[in-house]
């Protein structure tokens, strides 16, 4: 018979109509969907921006490291030439990547920049700082840092050697904490997406309760009945993610001038670049998965209330 029923056709049809239903549902009343879409977009925006920023700061942090790994303080009164000699003797060695010589004036200037007592220091009669050699170590050097310190400290012209890991360690600890905070925020925000999409699906189901019961009475399977709601969740995720991509772009444009200033003052390229195509796709996928999951949870919970009697 030409008009024979077909389970496959019914299945395909329910996907197409489910997807269309979800999309039209969303587009029909965008104002009513503001809360949901807003939460989804913000919940994707904040982690995305956070991760982007972390990535840039990480990259910048490894590029900076201007003060090196070791600072060699020459004895007071030693001339700058002695510092250059020390630097030269280090430059050939495999433990060392680079060296940098600072005159006592440079050193004082830096001390001033970092201290709240700038004006007080300017009142000092004489410069108390010695000349410095700042040493940047190779991985090999980093391994043998203590031996190197001993060796340099025993040089006659050297007063004292300081291991400069402190601020890098601090920065790394800070970045680590920031990363955790971003991930925690992302998790909380993901939960918020599940809740808010779930709430919306609950609303949809409440509005269509009678219709759902009727569909089941007419022989629609649970999966068929559920499909449009899962698609609604999916579309929320997708549209919310697209919205958050827009917001990422806007935020970056808005942050750019401030960042440019900051970057200029460090002589570094701190410019945030966008997410790129792969990042954008990942964000949309993440949003879709979250929306779908929220719809899944809510529909399991609430479709049970729409059983025939």
């Amino acid at each position: 018979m030409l008009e024979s029923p077909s389970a496959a056709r019914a299945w395909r049809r329910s996907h197409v109509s489910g997807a269309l239903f979800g999309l039209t549902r969303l587009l029909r009343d965008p104002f009513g969907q503001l809360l949901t879409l807003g939460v989804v977009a913000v919940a994707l925006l904040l982690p995305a921006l956070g991760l982007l920023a972390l990535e840039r700061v990480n990259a910048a942090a490894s590029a900076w490291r201007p003060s090196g790994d070791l600072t060699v303080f020459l004895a007071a009164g030693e001339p700058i030439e002695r510092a250059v000699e020390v630097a030269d003797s280090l430059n050939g060695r495999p433990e060392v990547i680079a060296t940098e010589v600072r005159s006592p004036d440079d050193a004082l200037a830096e001390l001033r920049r970092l201290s709240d007592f700038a004006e007080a220091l300017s009142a000092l009669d004489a410069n108390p700082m010695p000349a410095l050699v700042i040493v940047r170590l190779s991985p090999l050097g980093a391994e043998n840092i203590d031996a190197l310190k001993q060796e340099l400290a025993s040089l006659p012209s050297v007063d004292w050697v300081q291991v400069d890991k402190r601020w890098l360690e601090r920065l790394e600890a800070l970045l680590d904490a920031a990363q955790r905070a971003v991930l925690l925020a992302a998790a909380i925000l993901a939960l918020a997406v599940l809740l808010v999409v779930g709430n919306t699906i609950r609303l949809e189901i409440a509005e269509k309760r009678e219709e759902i019961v009727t569909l089941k009475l007419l022989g629609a399977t649970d999966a068929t009945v559920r499909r449009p709601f899962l698609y609604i969740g999916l579309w929320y995720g997708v549209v919310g993610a697209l919205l958050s991509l827009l917001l990422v772009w806007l935020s970056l444009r808005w942050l750019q001038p401030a960042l440019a200033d900051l970057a200029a003052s460090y002589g570094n390229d701190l410019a945030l670049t966008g997410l790129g195509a792969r990042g954008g796709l990942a964000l949309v996928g993440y949003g879709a998965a979250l929306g779908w999951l929220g719809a899944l949870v809510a529909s399991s919970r609430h479709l049970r209330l729409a059983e025939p009697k």
Partner: protein
Amino acid sequence: MSIRFELVSKRFEDREALGDISFMVEPGEFVFVTGHSGAGKSTLLKLLALIERPTAGIIEVFGERLSKIPRRQLARYRRQLGLVFQDHRLLMDRSAFENVALPLRLDGYSEEAIARRVPTALAQVGLGGRERAFPAQLSTGEQQRLGIARAVVAAPKLLLADEPTGNLDPQLAVEIMELFVSLKSQGTTVVVASHDLPLIQKIRRRTIVLERGRQIDDFRPEDAHA
């Protein structure tokens, strides 16, 4: 055997809606279930549609024990049925056409088949040309007929109609009953719950009479049509 009830009872908390009902229905048979308001007519049909489960007794439909049908198979079972609900149960956000097309879509009929069958069914209940109307734009009697068109469109094996003519005038009611009788040609078994005694007397078919949940009669008028 289409339907077999064996000592079926249904209690709702303190009320016995049906007690010890036993009867059988042959394939293609047409049966009225009648009785006063609250006698248990709707409950009997709900048991057949698996909307309610009996408190005691055995129900078989097409040789299948209803109590053995798992939840996952409910949809499959229900797609063999055509249901006319006492409260119509139309989908308010779909047109008359889409309401009637629904069982065909769920079965996976092709669009061409749907486009051919739906207008026929609508015409059979006197709603030809109202394809695009939404249920809210129909009078109650028209809504009831839309529900009837939806119940018959997919040629169900078993038609369960609960008070299908409650909102129709006597003349239309007879026409609808004649439509139901004509379904015998495609092998459909028909069970109609109705309190409309004049109509039942006019159609002259087998009639099961309920009173306060008890089966007090099961008669076939002497000159009943086969």
